[in-house]
């Protein structure tokens, strides 16, 4: 099996023992603004103090299906922006749905969960594992 590379371990957690994977947003303790991913200090007030906020389930703001994606990615690629209303942050990432009925499965406003999966290959052909989204009714914990 090809070696796998996990991208961004500092803000994407896959719990040992089978818990649901989650992302980490960083809320500034001074001004309250939330950022994703990790930053050395707050772009708004330059404070270095952050509170970590776990992100597991959000709502689809918008999406597209790309048929001419970047090198290293096989089309079609579903990509979307997911809002986490409580935490006040939006994350753009791949969405895993059945390619044959993609449009029927995607509805703006639907709930999505974080999951781990292969997002692309690097230049040497190795899989890169990172976060992606999956419809919440299917469940992000399934691997």
């Amino acid at each position, binding site marked *: 099996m090809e070696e796998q590379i996990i991208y961004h371990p500092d803000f994407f957690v896959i719990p040992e023992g089978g818990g649901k994977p989650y992302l980490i947003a960083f809320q500034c303790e001074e001004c309250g603004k*939330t950022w994703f991913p990790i930053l050395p200090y707050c772009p708004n007030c330059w404070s270095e103090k952050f509170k970590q906020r776990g992100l597991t389930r959000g709502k689809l703001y918008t999406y597209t299906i*790309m048929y001419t994606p*970047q090198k290293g*990615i096989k089309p079609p690629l579903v990509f979307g922006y997911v809002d986490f209303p409580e935490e006040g*942050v939006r994350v753009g990432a791949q969405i895993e749905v059945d390619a044959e009925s993609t449009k029927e499965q995607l509805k703006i406003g639907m709930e999505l969960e974080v999951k781990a999966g292969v997002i692309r290959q690097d230049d040497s052909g190795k899989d890169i594992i990172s976060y992606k989204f999956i419809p919440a009714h299917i469940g992000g914990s399934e691997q």
Partner: protein
Amino acid sequence: MNYRDVYVIGAGMTKIYKKAPVPADELGRQAIYTAVKDAGIAPKEIQSIFIGEMGGLSGSVCFGQRVCGTIGLGGVPMANVESACSSGAIAVHQAYKDVATGRCDVAMGVGVQHLSSSRAGGTGLAPDPRDPEGIQGATMAGIYASRAQRYLHEFNATPADLALVSVKNRRHAALNPYSSYQQPITVEEVLNARMIADPLTMLMCCPNADGGAAVIVATKEKVRQLGAKPVRIAASSLTSGIFRNDFRDMTEMEITIRCSQKAYEMASLGPDDIDMVECHDAFAIGEFLYYEAMGFCEHGEAARFIRSGGPDYGGKVVFSPRGGLLSCGHPTGCTGAAQIVEATWQLRNEAGARQVPDCKAAITHVTGGGVYGLDNAACTMHILTR
């Protein structure tokens, strides 16, 4: 500080090519040559020079010096400027600033790009792969398609409405000998073209292109001395993107709203005074969002605006009279300067078959750069008047 009035005294460009017959530096020299001849000045009268090119794609450091050296333009302050698609417009902005602030009396901004030699065909222009969305596979088409998907969800608009932008701009390009694409297209052809990023088909996405454009600016005294038709730069507005991770409204072009408010304020003009706009129609949805961001119609009304002929000849304002990026092609770093050349020709009543009738005020607008967390990395707007 009191700024001096600044005028365009020379404008020149190459044809926009699908694949240019000469390399990047030669495109720059051809554009400069036509602009200098147009101005009727001696080349050595140019006192400062700025050259815009996206991302060093020509493969040369100090690209401007390479362009200018062998045509005898060295010895003056010269700087290479880069902000993706905005590069050429920022080069003109820098030249404007030199004259406005009294740093010199004659300055030049140039934009050049030779994409056909520097990018692989069949791949989407994408944000930096180090960006969180870049590594996830987002392309520029994908990001604009996401805007379009949300726009169609929120407002009364369909993909067929978006196709009207492509059809209109191709009809305009057919009358422009400088454009890459002149064959008319229909709404059906646009909708049935290969899907790039849903809902944007290939004919709703601008093609890669090669080209060079140069703009020479000067004081009012210089215009009088030359006896040239005066085209004034009433506003030169440049701004940068603001990093945000919260719930940005992707149907609203925040950076363009800020940049246009500043431009209107500088020029003491409003949307009702404008006769034509060359905007950053890299994707059909772009024109929709810019009608609204620049105040030509209300937010959410773009489809109705284009259906009624608002942004066309005979309507409220002519958008993309040269054919826009969609049909001229988009030589990224050149485009911003090429738009200013077009506006100059239109204001001088020299635009031939595509002349906007009685054109008195023109906007050029070009954003640039997919950088994580920013609406766009850069936005540059000019308002030119006669």
